[in-house]
């Protein structure tokens, strides 16, 4: 078996986190190779390294036994690696045919473009997929699924040796997936090698020849798909280690938030649950399961189309963030640097941004003393380090930045706190601090909705757990006495439904 790709001892470290730890992997030519692992296992990092977007701290890459060093994405493209990321990098205002041929046209440095030839080549590639699409149509009008195929087609035009597909089926329907798989098999028959990354284990097992597992940045093993079951795969992905301290569960108080059959087309469907004061309700599921869309609906950003919401047993309609705030709902978003913080401002300014009206004096002007004392209070309470209120927030570490976001919402004194991926990209010590903080807040009477794709985290801090998948609630547990495997099972699409 000829080896098309080999990576050896790849290590990539971010502050406080080992994204990839001494990973070695090999792909045979002409095989479809699946790559699985939980969120944070290191899959995206590995792909980005192979695509030439980021560079490893240690380790080597070999393509057909020749060592490689990529200095930019075009480099890896020229060496034969084509990647379709989840954000497709296509041009919505251009035709499909042109999108497919763009990079090729540039590489050939043609002075005059021969549209007949371009359209013919594009058509040829698409015909191999067996799909009829009018290639003159503008890309922007295509469904995401078809745009996916266009991205793959573009990758193919370069005579790629290795095609890496990152979560290609995330937004595809059953029939579209079948078409995609047929296309992949055609490519394999032509001698192409494919690295297929997905959370959907059943699909991975269906299409791949072999599958490799990453866990916590480490390589766990490679297995022929004919010899392994989904359950075994899950156990390799999840491992038996408990990462987090398990906290005692709280006794819930009065119902704070009740949601009945909340639905929005293309986002989520029939969501029903109740959040009580004093409890941590965990919502888990994979990326794309609709958790963030649901959270934003409750915060007045992504308005639902059907269903009812009750706050403290009174029916409400949350039509804007201001209304959400009036009802005492706070939302800590997933992407803290873009959505949660104003990077050009200092720590103090970021903390008080939600309570500006409360720190004014009798003349409606901001009272600097009130401002700094409130800021200091929260800096101390959350142990934000270094405790410099005037330091620019972008200079703080990820963990402290997250604490700042939490501080700004705690300063607001909410009744309900929705927190989306509370410890993403944060070192272990800070993670524990934040978990303890959330537990303490619940004890003080807050109702907290915790959204996380890290199952061990959900198990550690939640009192009750909901699992979402593809916009639906697929499981609800009255406590946290459920296994990691079962949660992962529910979150991932299984063949036996």
């Amino acid at each position: 078996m000829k080896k098309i790709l080999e990576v050896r001892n790849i290590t990539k470290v971010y502050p406080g986190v080992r994204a990839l730890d001494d990973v070695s992997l090999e792909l045979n030519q002409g095989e479809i190779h699946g790559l699985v692992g939980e969120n944070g296992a290191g899959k995206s990092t590995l792909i980005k390294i192979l695509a030439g977007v980021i560079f490893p701290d240690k380790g080597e890459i070999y393509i057909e036994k020749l060592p490689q060093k990529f200095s930019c994405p075009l480099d890896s493209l020229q060496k034969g690696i084509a990647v379709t990321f989840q954000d497709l990098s296509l041009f919505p205002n251009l035709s499909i045919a042109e999108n497919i041929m763009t990079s090729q046209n540039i590489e050939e440095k043609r002075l005059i473009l021969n549209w007949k030839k371009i359209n013919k080549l594009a058509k040829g590639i698409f015909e191999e997929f067996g799909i009829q699409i009018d290639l003159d149509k503008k890309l922007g009008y295509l469904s995401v699924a078809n745009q996916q195929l266009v991205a793959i087609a573009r990758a193919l035009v370069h005579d790629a040796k290795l095609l890496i597909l990152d979560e290609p089926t995330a937004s595809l329907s059953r029939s579209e997936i079948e078409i995609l798989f047929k296309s992949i098999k055609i490519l394999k028959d032509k001698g192409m090698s494919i690295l297929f990354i997905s959370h959907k284990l059943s699909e991975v097992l269906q299409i791949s020849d072999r599958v490799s597992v990453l866990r916590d940045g480490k390589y766990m093993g490679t297995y022929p798909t004919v010899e392994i079951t989904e359950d075994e795969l899950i156990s390799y992905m999840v491992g038996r280690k408990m990462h987090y301290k398990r906290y005692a569960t709280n006794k819930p108080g009065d119902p704070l938030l009740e949601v009945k059959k909340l639905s929005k087309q293309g986002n989520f469907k029939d969501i029903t649950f109740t959040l009580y004061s004093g409890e941590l309700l965990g919502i888990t599921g994979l990326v794309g399961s609709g958790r963030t869309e649901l959270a934003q609906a409750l915060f007045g950003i992504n308005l639902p189309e059907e269903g009812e919401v009750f706050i403290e047993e009174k029916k409400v309609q949350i039509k804007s963030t201001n209304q959400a705030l009036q009802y005492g709902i706070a939302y800590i978003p997933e992407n803290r640097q873009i959505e949660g913080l104003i990077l050009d401002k200092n720590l103090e300014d970021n903390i008080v941004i939600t309570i500006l009206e409360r720190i004014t004096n009798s003349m409606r002007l901001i009272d600097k003393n009130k401002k700094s004392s409130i800021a200091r209070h929260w800096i101390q309470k959350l142990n934000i380090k270094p405790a410099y209120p005037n330091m620019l927030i972008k200079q703080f570490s990820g963990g402290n930045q997250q604490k700042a976001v939490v501080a700004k919402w705690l300063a607001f004194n909410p009744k309900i706190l929705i927190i989306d991926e509370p410890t993403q990209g944060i070192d272990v010590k800070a993670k524990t601090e934040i978990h303890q903080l959330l537990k303490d807040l619940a004890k003080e009477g807050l109702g907290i909705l915790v959204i996380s794709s890290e199952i061990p985290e959900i198990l550690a801090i939640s009192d009750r757990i909901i699992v979402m998948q593809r916009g639906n609630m697929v499981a609800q547990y009255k406590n946290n006495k459920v296994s990691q495997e079962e949660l992962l099972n529910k979150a991932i699409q299984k063949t036996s439904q």
Partner: protein
Amino acid sequence: MKTKSEIVLLILFISIFMILSVVSQGRFLSFDNLQIMAFQLPELGMITLGMMVVILLAGINLSITATSALSGVITALFLTNIETGNICLLICGAIAVATMFGLLSGLLNGYIIAYIGVTPILATLGAKILFEGISLYLTKGGSISGYPKQFFIFGNGTIFQIPIPLIIFIVFFVITYFLLDRTPWGAKVYSIGSNPIAAKFSGIHVKRISLQVYIYSSLLASIASIIMISRYNSAKAALGQSYLLESIAAAVLGGTKITGGEGSVLGTLLAISIIQIISSGFNMLNVNRFITNAIMGLLLIFVLSVDYLWGMYGQRSSIKATNY
């Protein structure tokens, strides 16, 4: 960091002032000249403040001088066509008319930009064309003059030797300072300019506040128009044209980042002064006004080039998510 650039501006101001004094052989320092500048500066100052608040939001108001001109024209028409014996009432009415127009034009701009979502460049460009057209129509290309004597104090009067327009400007300068730097509203404006997404997620009503900023901008422009038509004793479509470019240059020179979110009201004041003394100085040295125009254009580009290059060397935050 903020105070450092303000000190640089102060030094710049003093240096240019001294150079001009020397080159003009002392004429620059004459009481007459200082007085003229004191009368002229408020106009540029008001317009620059109006431009600054909008740039803070990461926007721009290309229609600000057209707003000023049209406001002046409408006020002039009011003053010259309304028959009443009560001069005081007439003048109050004129001020009310100007203010009303300022609010309405700001509402137009703000609505199209904040609620419909058109980019500020295009929306205010369209408004500029529209307002200029209306001004031309109303004035038939000429100018309107002949206001009651009492109206002249706005542009020409003094109290204890201090020009009234300067007093008006200082009042609005202080108001703007307090609004931007000392009220919750101002903090929200800075936040929106720096990161509108995070601002929205923090419960800030981005649309409403953006609308209010454009209204305030136009309001400043229309009050400036009262000063201007009073001083020139005429209102025409081209009133204050040169201030458009100068106000942008002054705002950026004063430390307002063209990308929004950062600015210094004090720095802007210093920058306004610098631009004013350059403009007046050139005039006094009989530099052809076209050359002055050309140099202002060059200055604008220069100021922004420095702004960009400075940002490159400093620590500009690139908003990247640490996803891995």
